[in-house]
């Protein structure tokens, strides 16, 4: 991080120099202007993003219950909150759920998104437009609608999924999934089927962004490169790994990091599918933090400690994102 900051620092320095000696003499008023223009933004960011981060750090070392929320001074408990979560089975389960879900969902999203991007690139005009618009429907839906619709698709009674599985031959579903009769089967009680539906819902919504980004990248690659690869006898597989992937590496890097960040903190969809906070085995880190902070009686200190673990993990990943963007964008 310091490395990139330093580099862009020197870049800025070099650029500032000629501007200062430019044609228009700048008084002290113009020198103040940018700061005045930035003032509202800085106030908002400082007051509503940075200060809460600080409050979260403080609260994670305190015992914050109902009375403290109302404004009574909170009692410091040192590292007790962190000790408690690190020795709690629920925390480790939530961490496992978070990481495993992110690993599966991110890989599935990237693979599917890339394949669809490559597919659209090879389609005729009408077909490619149709695919782009249809995937965009999924992409643009509010998370809450997505969660609701997938909850309905997998509903135990009126759901399409159970109906489809019942249509399939019993011996097949029996051999593959260990169940032949799916009438009334609930997907949302055990973590594994629950996370399966969650993965489907999240991948369904996230792959279009990957596809469209990859497509934009593909369009920037000169067609002669693919032609040359084909002349050299490369099939689609080799042509992807030897032409497309190396050229689009920066795109993939950003998409990978963004997907990890998004999938690490999935909340709305899980809250809906798990039916609230009643099932600790289904928690991921954000639902766990929320559950501790807002259950009754609330334990905001403990919740803050969990949120800090989540924030630190995401911060580390964000550093990669920022480095990648700064490298490409030049932060001019």
């Amino acid at each position, binding site marked *: 991080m310091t490395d990139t*900051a330093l580099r862009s620092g020197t870049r800025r320095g070099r650029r500032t120099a000629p501007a200062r000696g430019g044609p228009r003499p700048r008084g002290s008023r113009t020198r103040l202007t940018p700061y005045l223009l930035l003032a509202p933004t800085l106030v908002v*960011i400082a007051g509503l993003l940075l200060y809460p*981060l600080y409050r979260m750090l403080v609260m994670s070392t305190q015992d914050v219950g109902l009375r403290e929320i109302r404004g009574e001074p909170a009692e410091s408990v040192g590292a007790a909150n962190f000790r408690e979560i690190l020795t709690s089975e629920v925390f480790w389960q939530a961490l496992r759920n978070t990481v495993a879900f992110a690993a599966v969902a991110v890989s599935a999203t990237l693979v599917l998104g890339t394949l669809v991007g490559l597919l659209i690139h090879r*389609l005729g005009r009408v077909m490619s437009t149709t695919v782009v618009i249809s995937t965009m429907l999924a992409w643009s839906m509010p998370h809450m*609608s997505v969660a609701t619709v997938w909850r309905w698709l997998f509903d135990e009674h009126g759901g399409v999924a159970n109906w489809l599985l019942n249509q399939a031959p019993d011996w097949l579903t029996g051999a593959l999934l260990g169940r032949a009769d799916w009438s009334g089967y609930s997907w949302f009680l055990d973590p594994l089927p629950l996370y399966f539906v969650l993965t489907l819902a999240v991948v*369904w919504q996230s792959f279009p962004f990957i596809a469209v*980004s990859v497509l934009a990248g593909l369009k920037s690659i000169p067609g002669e490169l693919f032609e040359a690869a084909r002349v050299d006898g490369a099939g689609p597989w080799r042509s992807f790994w030897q032409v497309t992937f190396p050229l689009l590496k920066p*795109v993939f890097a950003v998409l990978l990091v963004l997907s990890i960040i998004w999938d690490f903190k999935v909340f709305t969809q899980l809250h809906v599918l798990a039916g609230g906070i009643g099932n600790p085995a289904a928690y991921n880190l954000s639902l766990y933090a929320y559950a501790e902070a807002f259950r009754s009686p609330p334990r905001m200190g403990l919740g803050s400690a969990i949120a800090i673990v989540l*924030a630190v993990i995401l911060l580390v990943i964000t550093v990669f994102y*920022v480095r990648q963007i700064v490298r490409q964008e030049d932060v001019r």
Partner: protein
Amino acid sequence: MRAVAGRRSSRVAINAAAIAVIVFSVFPVFWMVSTALKTNEDIFTTDIVLVPTSVTWAHFREIFTEGIGNTSLWIYLRNSTVVALGAVLFGSAAALLGATAVARFRFRFRASFLIMLLIVQMVPHEALLIPLFVMARQAGLTNRLLGLVIINVAFTLPFAIWMLRTFVAAVPRELEEAAEIDGASRFRTFVSILFPLVAPGLVATSIFSFITVWNEFIFAFTLMADESGYTMPVALRWFIAREGIDWGGVMATSTVMTIPVIIFFLFVQRRMVSGLVAGAVKG
């Protein structure tokens, strides 16, 4: 001969794959709308009815009159609109000033500010929920739409500046300089030269912010305790938490919430890619 046949069969395979992608993407959306238009007999059956046998608007009529929880959907639509418009109004004003500062001036900490924007954009809102809830509670802003407006400004502002700055930078500086030579004040130049040229970008940015706020769930869910203050996503969450879910009404509500977002989204989708992937995609 064989080469031609091979090419034709691969054409067929590609188009078949495309149709599979279309079905996979569209089906859940189709299912949402079709459930909303079905009679309860068609919804609650063990034999799935793919296309409604008789289309009914009863679910839509119901959610807008008596509503699922005895409150008409109009209240939630109004709340969502107030919060989204409020946040967009304040956010866009601040973003325009901020973007102008970043795109038009060279000053100390400029690069650091941009990097801070990128980082702040990625701060997980889910993690900030707890401190912001306590702060809102102590400021007496829970259960008030104003509290949601303020918080949503903070969440949409960093990306708005990041996106808007490229629009401001795209306006040729010479235009402003010409106006200044003609004797226009800095403010006048801003209002009559820069603003009209940046307006399309401002609209695109505002639409983004609008969609983000419209979809926001977790803060509205924790901050608004009374039903009368629910936004659309919170109302929907509440509907499916009830015993014996009325799926027709739920899907109708979900459809109403989704339609404006889809329309807006189709306008600004292109910029979304360039905003997030920044310089990585140059097409």
